């Protein structure tokens, strides 16, 4: 058990708690980003080997470049999807005039 594993678990729990407990829809989406940060931190920690994956003479074992390239995908697509979800929330709130999820459920019924 390493410090980075504990920290990434804490970040993940903060995100899950926020997604479930917050009533504001924008804060829910931002907490989804927090969950993503925890997952990225864990995978960076798993692949860490002491040397960054840039070829240097005299070093044989590197961190895993495959995981780094996957995390590049995760970050870019997370950023684009977060903005798309914010647009959907803005459209919803321009019709219902609120961000609170309880009132939205009441008005839809």
């Amino acid at each position, binding site marked *: 058990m390493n410090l980075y*594993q504990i920290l990434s*678990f804490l970040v993940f*729990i903060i995100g899950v708690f926020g997604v479930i407990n917050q009533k504001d829809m924008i804060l829910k989406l931002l907490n989804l980003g927090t969950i993503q940060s925890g997952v990225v931190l864990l995978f960076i920690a798993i*692949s860490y080997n002491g040397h960054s994956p*840039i070829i240097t003479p005299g070093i044989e074992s590197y961190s895993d*470049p495959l995981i780094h390239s996957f995390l590049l995908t995760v970050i*870019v697509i997370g950023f684009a999807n977060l903005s*798309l979800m914010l647009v959907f929330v803005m459209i919803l709130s321009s019709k219902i005039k609120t961000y609170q999820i309880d009132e939205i459920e009441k008005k839809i019924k």
Partner: protein
Amino acid sequence: MIKTIISIILLSSIFFIFIFNVNIGDATSTFTPELIIRENGSQNMVSSIVLDFRLFDTFFEVLVFTIAIIGVSFYMEKLPEYKGKDTILRSPVIQIMTPILFQIIVLISLYIALTGHIGPGGGFAAGVILGTGLIGVSFVKPMDEIENIFKRSKIEKFKILSPLLIIIYGILGLVWGDTYFANFPLTGEVGSLLSGGSAVLINFIIGFEVFAGTWTILYKFIKHRGLL
């Protein structure tokens, strides 16, 4: 309340089990430096995987990014435009320093896109840096000027062409007698600017795509929501 607690515990236990079964340094590189130098020639191993070994993966990433940006600019049209007055920051420090900083940011972004296969960096980072620099400019310029540049550059239409360019590049792989998405057959000397085959070309295509997407998101949000 009990429902909330139970769902939090169940969701986090999935992650908890996974954390306890792995250790730091479990995933060391299965790619040896000799393999990467022989096959691709870039000094940055991540760049050689993103732009050569798994370019098919990267292509779909760029495609998903493009579709998300098209969704943003399509659904934003359904919202009313922001009618309030421009919220330009009147602080002299910001007004003088931002245009100077913006030129430096553009230079850094070009440098990162150009040397993505030698050191840390690459197309995605370059595009995001350039798009972030434009946020600073929108603090000091009035909205009309930015709108003028955005409309005149037609970047909203050109950015859709980036996945198409990658497809054309992938088909070109057949021309030099290999399979689809094959690299240029010139790997060059490791560490020089022209190593890594097509790394510079694809880095610039991806950088342009990410920059155009970031700028579109920024412009649409400012146009329909205001700066603050």
